[in-house]
């Protein structure tokens, strides 16, 4: 593992991910508060953040627990919201291929929305696998540590921030900050528009299936747009 580690790139990853903490801290706190509200002990609430390490899955699990949903329904719902992670896994796969098994297993553990979206561009633009992997690990490690601290803060301090502040809105705002630099060409704009329309129209789908379905529509639109562009050129 040491052979691949690039300290400079690791620290760069930590630094570039730091603005996202504005969104991660309240989100992690909400997960801590939610787990306690669902009846989890403080240790279990923290274990949830360490073992699941997925805000979306944790929110779904605690909400359904509180609502008294059956065990299998909770696991299935969490699986559906985790389907997007499979897409990230596929998108990252070619770039992680040159790494050894330990690196791949470790990087998979810290694969999150933010780390993926903020890092994938670097993987595409640079061939330095060791530096890219270390950069990704730095981003993921910062998110992991702060996620645990935020959960702990939520467990200990509970609901210290009033709901009327609407602080949960920083989460979509963080994603807007990640999204805008990615909308650099016509095809990306088309993917954005089709996904947005599909997300609104499919919102009523059960088990939050709308997220993955809207995403698939957007990707299909992108593939079609690429094909049109290719045939015009050829």
């Amino acid at each position, binding site marked *: 593992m040491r052979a691949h580690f690039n300290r400079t790139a690791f620290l760069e990853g930590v630094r*570039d991910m*730091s603005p996202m903490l*504005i969104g991660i801290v309240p989100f992690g706190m909400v997960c801590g508060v939610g787990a306690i509200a669902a*009846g*989890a002990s403080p240790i279990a609430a923290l274990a*949830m953040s360490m*073992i*699941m390490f997925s805000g979306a*899955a944790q929110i779904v699990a605690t909400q359904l627990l509180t609502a008294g949903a059956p*065990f299998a329904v*909770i*696991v299935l719902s969490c699986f559906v919201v*985790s389907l*997007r*992670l499979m*897409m*990230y*896994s*596929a*998108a990252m*796969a*070619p770039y992680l291929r040159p790494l050894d098994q330990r690196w*791949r*297993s470790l990087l*998979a*553990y810290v*694969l999150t*929305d933010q780390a993926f*979206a903020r890092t*994938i561009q670097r993987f595409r633009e640079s061939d330095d696998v060791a530096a890219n992997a270390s950069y990704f690990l730095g981003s993921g490690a910062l998110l992991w540590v702060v996620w645990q601290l935020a959960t702990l803060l939520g467990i200990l301090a509970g609901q210290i921030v009033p709901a*009327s502040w*609407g602080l949960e*809105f*920083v*989460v*979509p*705002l*963080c*994603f*807007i*900050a*990640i*999204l*805008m*630099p*990615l909308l650099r060409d016509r*095809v990306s704009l088309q*993917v*954005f528009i089709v*996904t*947005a329309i599909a*997300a*609104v129209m499919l*919102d009523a789908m059960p088990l939050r299936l*709308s*997220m993955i379905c*809207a995403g698939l529509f957007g*990707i299909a639109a*992108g593939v079609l747009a*690429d094909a049109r562009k290719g045939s015009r050129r050829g």
Partner: protein
Amino acid sequence: MDRQLTIWLLIFAVGATTYAARMSFIAFFARRAMPPWLAEALKHVPVAMITAIIVPSIAFVSPGALQLDAGNAKLVAALVAGGVAWWGQSTAAGGMIVRQTAVLTIAAGMIVLWLLKYLVG
């Protein structure tokens, strides 16, 4: 079943599925090449999935209640934040500016949201 036991079982069951999802294709394509058409299609994953995640939390004021006008404070705040992010990235590139733009984007969105809530009540 005991509540704490249920919760612990749930943590491990969901933890296993999320890790399996994360590891799935990284493991699958570790030993074989990815078909080029799939690699091309996957280039659209970041834009598509981020959009799919954020749009419902912006366009709906409460579950099932779509509101696409200026009365939706979250929509206005998101548009302003998007404008700030767009302006920031077209002004300059480079790590420093990218980080500052992200902070400005989030700050602009929250300030607009709070102003609208305060002004409209």
